[in-house]
């Protein structure tokens, strides 16, 4: 397992996919914050001063980075089939279940790390921007160590990691890269929203809506997803269940598939 972990880490380090993910995540997380700080009139910012941290610092990163990480997870699996490296992967480690498990773990850690880095950077950017405009972002030392805040941050990081792992599982189930990425994005960004709009009670239980309800807090989720929101913990439980099912299915199917 240790050998496989080392190989998987080298796979990530030796191509530009992970670096591309990090750069894209940073851009996506920071750009809205910078634009908001620069362009939103001060009086409008003052009105939302209580929620500035959410609006400027965390929201863009928290809602967009998991989607990017999900795509990264899909790519890390489907690239193996696309470039034929899967043959060497299974020749050196014929117990395919272990390969999938290691990939799930490594990608989950990378997803969480990318979320942490982008979240922190977005927060720093928002702090600098708001202070430059004479506003208080409202972060107090007591809040940083507050149990609920620590829990929320941990849930966001965990869910982003799990979303990345979910991508790996989807990539293992649907090996064709274009179909896998396009299908997942269409489902996540369009189909679930339509279902949530038509049947809110069903929509809140769908996988990507559940992820979203964890990464933004429950109150925001109601606005973003347009459905009666689950609590962060409930949504986290649903997310874990989806990922567990997808991962088990990925291992089961991968072990039985021919590599031709």
């Amino acid at each position, binding site marked *: 397992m240790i*050998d*496989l972990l*080392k*190989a998987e880490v*080298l*796979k990530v380090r*030796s*191509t*530009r996919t992970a670096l591309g993910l990090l750069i894209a995540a940073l851009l996506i997380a920071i750009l809205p914050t910078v634009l908001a700080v620069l362009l939103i009139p001060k009086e409008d910012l003052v009105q939302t001063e209580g929620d500035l941290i959410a609006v400027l610092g965390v929201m863009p990163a928290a809602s967009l980075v998991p989607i990017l990480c999900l795509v990264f997870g899909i790519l890390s699996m489907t*690239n193996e089939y696309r*470039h*034929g*490296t*899967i*043959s*060497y*992967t*299974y*020749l*050196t*480690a*014929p*117990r395919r279940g272990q390969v999938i498990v290691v990939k799930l773990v490594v990608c989950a850690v990378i997803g969480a790390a990318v979320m942490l880095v982008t979240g922190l950077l977005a927060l720093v950017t928002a702090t600098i921007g708001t202070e430059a405009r004479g506003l208080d972002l409202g972060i107090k030392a007591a809040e940083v160590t507050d149990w609920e805040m620590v829990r929320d941050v941990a849930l966001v990081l965990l869910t982003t990691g799990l979303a990345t792992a979910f991508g790996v599982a989807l990539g293992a189930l649907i090996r064709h890269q274009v179909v896998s990425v396009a299908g997942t994005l269409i489902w996540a960004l369009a189909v679930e929203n339509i279902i949530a709009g038509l049947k809110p009670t069903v929509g809140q239980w769908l996988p990507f809506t559940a992820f979203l309800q964890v990464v933004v807090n429950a109150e925001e989720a109601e606005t973003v997803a347009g459905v009666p929101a689950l609590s962060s913990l409930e949504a986290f439980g649903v997310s874990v269940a989806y990922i567990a099912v997808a991962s088990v299915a990925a291992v089961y199917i991968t072990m*039985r598939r*021919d*590599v*031709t």
Partner: protein
Amino acid sequence: MSVIDVEHLTKRFGKVLAVDDVSFALQPGTITGFLGPNGAGKTTTLRMIVDLVQPTRGTARVLGGRYRDLARPWTRVGALLDASGFHPGRSGRNALRVVARSSGIPDERVEQALELVELTAAAKRAVKGYSTGMRQRLALGCVLLGDPEVLLLDEPGNGLDPEGIRWLRTFLRGRAAEGKTVLVSSHVLAEVEQTVDDVLIISKGKLVAQGPIGQLAGGASPVVRCRSPQAGRLHELLAGRGAAVNRLDEALAIRGPSAADVGQLALDNGIVLHELLTEQPSLEDLFLQIAGTRRAGQ
């Protein structure tokens, strides 16, 4: 004990029977050619041996057990199945390091393998910048990482230039001299003819011949070649006596009668011969003969 033991291996992809009840055993220290035209079932058989493809029926055992049950299999069995199986954005060195790390092989061995396949100078370059021959050599380097006792090579000569082919022959002979067992598939018969001890010939998924190359070649009928300005007349006479004759202008290739029989027939009928010789069958002749027999029998 056999190094590779294949029994009744069968693979069906939907309606296509890719491999049909193939059985063979390879002894240690031998080089065996696995021959057949494209689509004959060579690659599928090799992939079943290393557990990449699940057989519909039958078993394949490597070094006494299933490939998946070997501890660190890449240090026991090296398989070259797809020379394009490298990420194009990864450098040659890192491509080998990934394989080495997942098998617990130290990085020093990567440098040795790169040296052996003469790719040290290009090791930093991304694989997408490699020529087909360089990729093939990289794949061979990958196979050598674990210094395995068994080598399964699927069309290893693809993309190699004549110098590379010669290097490959020397390389294979060297491995056999070290007591390693090599199974090398090819559809270019001349490529392996000078290298292998035994051959397995597969056609349309079925193993149609196997054995030492000399023995199989000895069992094939020789070809009598002759040139005559009256080739058409001689062709008719030979065909009338049941010989298999191919004619191209003045040249005839005859299977069945001996050169003496052909010479006597020409003399008896006043036919002038400019050339008459017996050619011992090559592996290619043998293969075409067997494949032709099968085709005719279907």
